[in-house]
């Protein structure tokens, strides 16, 4: 292991902190202790994560063909160059960005709303908390099915409601102009309860005294929310904005069961384009090159989020 020389160097400062008889005996140092647990896992992760990455990297420099026998020709950066000028790819990148931003905003807003309601429940009604978290336990796959059926004009809630009120119209949410927003609503339905529970846990730690002070200052409900409730939650918001960003950019099953990229291309986000390139068109080299762009987007967006928001919260 590369860590060995470091390990011996660390011995001296370590002994200073470890007072008492334990340090006299032959005993594991911090480093050794850490290595014993970390190394097997890291080897596992390297094998099962680095291997696919390396393989994808290798394939991304090749033009893979299946028809007329398997062939992989080395093509340098051709695949990457082709992705750069692929309009369909950039259109799907834009859809992904839109979907992600909407999902993050909706998830945090709805999560806050749910948390506020849960906080204000009178003691006898606390059992409602157990019910409200249920959507989080539903798989993205199941969420997609739920929202496909409730949103589609033919089977949907909108149409049923309209006909119950005597209108003879079909109301559908699975239409090209709003499908991305509708997907975001579904994703937010799935994720918001978890956010709500963490926000709630944080809200509980705000001393009730502060709310009394706010009352004395005659703050309005909104002012109380802004100046008393919100400030301690900012770090939690940041953490969940990051988690939701990553999940939203990665999500595939929700979109697969809900809209299959359609109508037309309207819900063709990055992961779906990737799926179609690699699994439907079997253009593996091109798909692999694309997947590195996707990975770059994910790391880039979370990086930006950290730079403009997280760093400020870390310092607090």
């Amino acid at each position, binding site marked *: 292991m590369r*860590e060995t020389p*470091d*390990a011996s160097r660390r011995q001296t400062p370590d002994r200073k902190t470890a*007072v*008492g*008889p*334990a340090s006299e005996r032959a005993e*594991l140092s*911090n*480093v050794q*202790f*850490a290595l014993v*647990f970390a190394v097997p896992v*890291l080897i596992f*992760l390297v094998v*099962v*994560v680095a*291997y696919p*990455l390396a*393989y*994808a990297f290798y394939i991304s420099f090749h033009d893979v063909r299946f028809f007329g026998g398997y062939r992989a020709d080395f093509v340098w950066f051709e695949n990457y160059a082709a992705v750069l000028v692929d309009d369909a790819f950039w259109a799907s990148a834009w859809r992904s960005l839109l979907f992600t931003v909407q999902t993050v905003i909706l998830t945090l807003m709805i999560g806050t709303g749910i948390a*506020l*309601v849960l906080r*204000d*429940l*009178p003691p006898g*009604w606390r059992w*409602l*908390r*157990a019910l*409200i*978290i*249920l959507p989080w*336990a*539903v*798989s993205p*796959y199941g*969420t997609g099915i*739920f929202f496909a*059926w*409730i949103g589609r004009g033919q089977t949907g809630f909108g*149409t*049923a409601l309209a*006909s119950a009120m005597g209108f003879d119209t079909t109301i559908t949410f699975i239409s090209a102009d709003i499908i991305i927003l509708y997907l975001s609503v*579904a994703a937010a*339905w799935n994720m918001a309860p978890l956010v709500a*529970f963490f926000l709630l*846990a*944080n809200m509980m730690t705000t001393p*009730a005294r502060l709310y009394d002070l706010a009352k004395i200052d005659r703050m309005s409900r909104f002012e*109380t929310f802004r100046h008393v409730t919100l400030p301690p939650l900012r*770090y939690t918001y940041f*953490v969940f904005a990051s988690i939701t960003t*990553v999940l939203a950019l*990665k999500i*595939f099953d929700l979109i697969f069961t809900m809209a299959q990229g359609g109508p037309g291309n309207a819900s063709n986000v990055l*992961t779906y384009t990737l799926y179609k390139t*690699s699994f439907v068109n079997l253009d593996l080299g091109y798909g692999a090159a694309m*997947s590195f762009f996707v*990975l770059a987007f994910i790391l880039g967006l979370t990086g930006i989020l950290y730079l403009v928001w997280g760093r400020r919260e870390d310092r607090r």
Partner: protein
Amino acid sequence: MIGQRFSPWLLLAIAVVLLWTFVPMYWTVKYAFMTKTEVARFPPVMFPHAPNLAAFYNIFGHDYTAADGTVYRASGQWSQIIAGIRNSLFIAVIVAIVTTLVVVPLAYVFARLDFPHKGKLLAAILLSVSLPPVSTLIPFYALYVQLGLVGTRTGLIIVTLTITIPIITWMLIGFFRNLPPIEQLGRIDGFSRLYIFARIIVPMARSGILVAAVIAFLFSWNEYVYAQVLSTASQAVTLPAAMSGFLFQVPEPSHLAASLLVSLLPPFFIAYFLQKHIAELNLA
């Protein structure tokens, strides 16, 4: 707001939250109790007129005779559904156990000890959280073909662990950071690091560890992308992969809804258990 009993606004807010939570679920779940003709009716019906359990009998391989003598035939995919439930349970339990055993010491080490290259190693774990499954599928598939792991439960367990281990390590690090700094005291008393970890930290962190196990179970139970590619139509088929037959190959809304409802039962029990403990697991 605090200490106040029901105001009309609060009541309205509770109603909105309950509708938001349950209408999407209800809309699909009701199909499980409806007949084919009722499902196809337009405009769509809000409530099943004569709720029946035909779909549940059918997906488990039994015919169902309705009161009016109509016979609903067993689904051709019932063996897949039953295999799916068995496999999903088996895989999820193993994944939950292995993930917990691996992640708890790992997260502890990252949260509480200082060692060289810690930042880089942590970044590597976060990188693996960021990998979209769609882009690692083909490499995994190629690797699995060579190793003979396609269509096996072992293969699915391994691939699911690559998702659960990094993300749950990430979640638990914050949790361990918030525990009181007990190690120094333990060291002064002359306990070894291993003893402190096993006898002091683990019992203190019990609820966090339970939550980690439960989340690992849920991840595995709900995983669809890998399962669809690596297990469909094999011995190792999982419940989501088996269900997708009702969605794509032979659309069968009431069967899909029934199997979806069955698939929701374990997560719902878990969610109920989880909401009691989740407040103690502080991510930040």
